[in-house]
């Protein structure tokens, strides 16, 4: 079963067309990298998938549930890390996680246990009682990922999660998410413009100026386009230097 299926999705702001007939799928338990330059439409796509924007044209299905018809059921399966930080800086890391758990209907006892478990997995348990305004950028991102996992989602969406992190921080975060994908069978859609975040066994969707210009396993993109690397393939597809 597909964790996420996007079918002929289009969106515009006034007369400005941002997405045009976008279609792709993310299989259950797979890591899919949504690759696109700044302004390619990745964040708009995330907003449509999460129901922040209403998709007038096309369909978004999460585990076969149409987002437009049953947003609550579809959202219950999703964990989301937005491009903009969404932590409440007045609250501690633990309080942020428990707030999210409450929104997803988790009982208090379970919420407390799970917040410790997720923060421990992401190696930030020692900051559970610290206000998030006191955490570093990398720690905040980890807390956001821990929060997105609180309700046990089967699909994790991350919109440029490594933006603003240093290289070791980026690698550590990427590794954590890959471990999650492997150990828990969570499907991941990871939007980025960093080509080095693509691994050989990932699936890749290349988005350029609102259109999908390539979709498939990462290890096939370069051979199919007759180039030597993912970076060259991306440059060829998007016309970037």
């Amino acid at each position, binding site marked *: 079963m597909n964790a996420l299926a996007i079918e002929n999705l289009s969106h515009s702001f006034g007369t400005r067309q941002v997405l045009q007939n976008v279609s792709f799928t993310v299989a259950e338990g797979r890591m899919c990298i949504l690759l696109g330059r*700044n302004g390619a439409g990745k964040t708009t796509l995330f907003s449509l998938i999460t129901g922040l924007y209403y998709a*007038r044209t096309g369909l978004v299905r999460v585990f076969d549930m149409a987002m437009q018809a049953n947003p609550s059921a579809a*959202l219950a399966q999703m964990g989301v890390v937005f491009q903009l930080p969404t932590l409440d800086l007045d609250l501690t890391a633990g*309080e942020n996680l428990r707030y999210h758990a409450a929104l*997803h209907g988790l009982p208090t006892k379970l919420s407390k246990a799970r917040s410790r478990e997720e923060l421990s997995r992401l190696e930030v348990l020692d900051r559970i009682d610290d206000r998030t305004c006191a955490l570093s950028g990398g720690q905040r991102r980890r807390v956001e990922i821990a929060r997105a996992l609180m309700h046990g989602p089967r699909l994790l969406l991350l919109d440029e999660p490594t933006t603003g992190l240093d290289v070791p921080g980026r690698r550590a975060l990427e590794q954590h998410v890959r471990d999650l994908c492997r150990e828990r069978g969570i499907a991941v859609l990871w939007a980025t413009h960093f080509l080095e975040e693509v691994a050989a066994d990932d699936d890749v969707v290349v988005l350029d100026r609102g259109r999908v210009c390539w979709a498939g396993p990462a290890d096939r993109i370069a051979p199919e386009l007759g180039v030597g690397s993912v970076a060259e393939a991306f440059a060829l597809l998007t016309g970037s230097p």
Partner: protein
Amino acid sequence: MKVDHALRALDGILRREMLRSLRQRARLFSAMVRPLVWLAIFAAGFRSVLGLSITPPYQTYVLYEVYVVPGLAAMMLLFHAMASSLAMVYDREMGSMRLLLTAPLPRWYLLAARLLASVIVGLPLVYLFLFVARFWDVRPPIMGYVAVLPALVLSGLMLGAFGLLVSSMSTQMENFAGVMNFVIFPMFFASTALYPIWRLAEAGPVLATIAAWNPFSSAVELIRFALYLRFDMVSMLVVVACLAAFFLAAVAGYDPGRGLWSRRGGEG
């Protein structure tokens, strides 16, 4: 929507509002000081120049302080609602609003829960003000403090729903200065909060008509009557009708298909 899920979400939203409110001490302090400054300075000055005739719910001549306290209680609710609305615009700019709106519950329920939580958090301060006002000889009947609770809740919800509507139409926090100048201050001053309507009629019939139609006046009168164990049916109906209208418009404003968000571009 499952009831236990809905209640847990409401509890979570309420806890968050309370924690944030307690940790923003400067905001708490100024919310308490503002009406006291009005009571201690403004009312003291007006007391000598503004005569008040006997108007319901009062059964005798009253001091200006006695007249103005219900209006100042409503002012606290109004400014609390606007602060809450500003916090929603801030949450939207900072991204944390996304978390609320992507929770697996109907959007109208999430907005209603946020509205209710905001009112609940604001009520203790209003009660504290009403008790402090006793030092200025504003002493309504003890049962009035109980009777005023539903009036405060209804008025708080109406003003909160109005703030929610304003937040759904505001694209950025800077717009709030305009909202304060062109909406909130006229709403407060062109009402019965500070002067009875017959006094406004003396100043000009247009101002009196505006005050009579101003829903904030209805909130003030509902609170004033309830505090003195009287019930103002017309004011209550106006407050309930405005609450429904403002809330429905706010829900439409936050609708992903119709609201401002879907017409405005994202980050990239």
